[in-house]
C-alpha cells in the first residue's frame, strides 16, 4: 500500500484511515506495526471492539464479502473502502466509490480507482460517481 500507492503519489490529496483491530490471537495493540503506512496522510486508529469492521460487515451488509469468506467472521477486515471528496457520513459513509479485499490482492483495482478519483477530484466541475465497484478475492481464508 505504502510503496505502491502513497509513495508513488506523494502529492495526492487523499486522507487514509488505517483502522487496526485484532482478528487472531497474536494480534494486539502493542504489536501494531508502527512502521507500516508511515505517511503523514495516514491516521492510525486502534479499534479494540472492532466497531468499524463490524459495522461494515453487518450494517453495510456487504453480501459479496460474507458470501466469499470461507470462515465465519463478524467484521470486515483486510479490506479497503474508497470515498470521494463529496462523501459524507449521515447514516453511514456515502457514496462509496469502491471497495475490495484482500488489500494486497485488490491493490491494482484500488490503485486504478484512486488514480481516477484523484484525477476527477482535481476538476472543479467533477460529478460524483454513481457506480460502486468492488474487488473481492477469495484468498482470504485466515481464521479469526
Amino acid at each position, binding site marked *: 500500500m505504502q510503496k505502491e500507492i502513497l509513495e508513488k503519489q506523494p502529492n495526492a490529496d487523499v486522507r487514509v484511515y488505517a483502522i487496526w483491530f485484532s482478528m487472531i490471537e497474536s494480534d494486539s495493540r502493542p504489536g501494531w506495526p508502527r512502521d507500516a503506512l508511515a505517511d503523514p496522510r495516514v491516521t492510525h486508529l*486502534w479499534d479494540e471492539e472492532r466497531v468499524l469492521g463490524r459495522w461494515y460487515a453487518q450494517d453495510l451488509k456487504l453480501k459479496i464479502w460474507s458470501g466469499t469468506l470461507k470462515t465465519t467472521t463478524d467484521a470486515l477486515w483486510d479490506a479497503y473502502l474508497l470515498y470521494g*471528496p463529496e462523501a459524507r457520513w449521515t447514516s453511514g459513509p456515502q457514496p462509496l466509490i469502491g471497495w475490495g479485499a484482500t488489500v494486497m490482492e485488490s491493490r491494482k483495482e484500488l490503485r486504478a480507482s484512486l488514480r481516477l478519483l484523484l484525477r476527477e477530484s482535481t476538476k472543479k466541475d467533477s460529478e460524483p460517481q454513481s457506480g460502486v465497484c468492488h474487488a473481492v478475492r477469495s484468498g482470504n481464508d485466515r481464521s479469526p
Partner: protein
Amino acid sequence: MEPCYTIGRLTREARLCGWRWPIVVLIVLLGTALGLAAEPGPSSSSIGDLKDLSQFSELFNRDAGHPRLVLLLSPT
C-alpha cells in the same frame, strides 16, 4: 592545579574535572537533539483509539472535500 567539581560526596573517580564538563554537556545536548530529530511525526508513529462509530464519523466528515480511503487491517 586544574579545577574540579565534586558531585555530592563521591569518591575521586566520580569527580569531573574542569575541561571535561563542556564535553559532557555537549554530548548530552547533541544526543537529545538527535533523538528529537529522529522522532517521527505523530501521524506516522502514533495510534489513537477508536471508541465508537460517532468518533469515526466525525473524523470522516471533518475531512470532507478530500478523497478518503478506509483500510481495515489487523497487525499480523
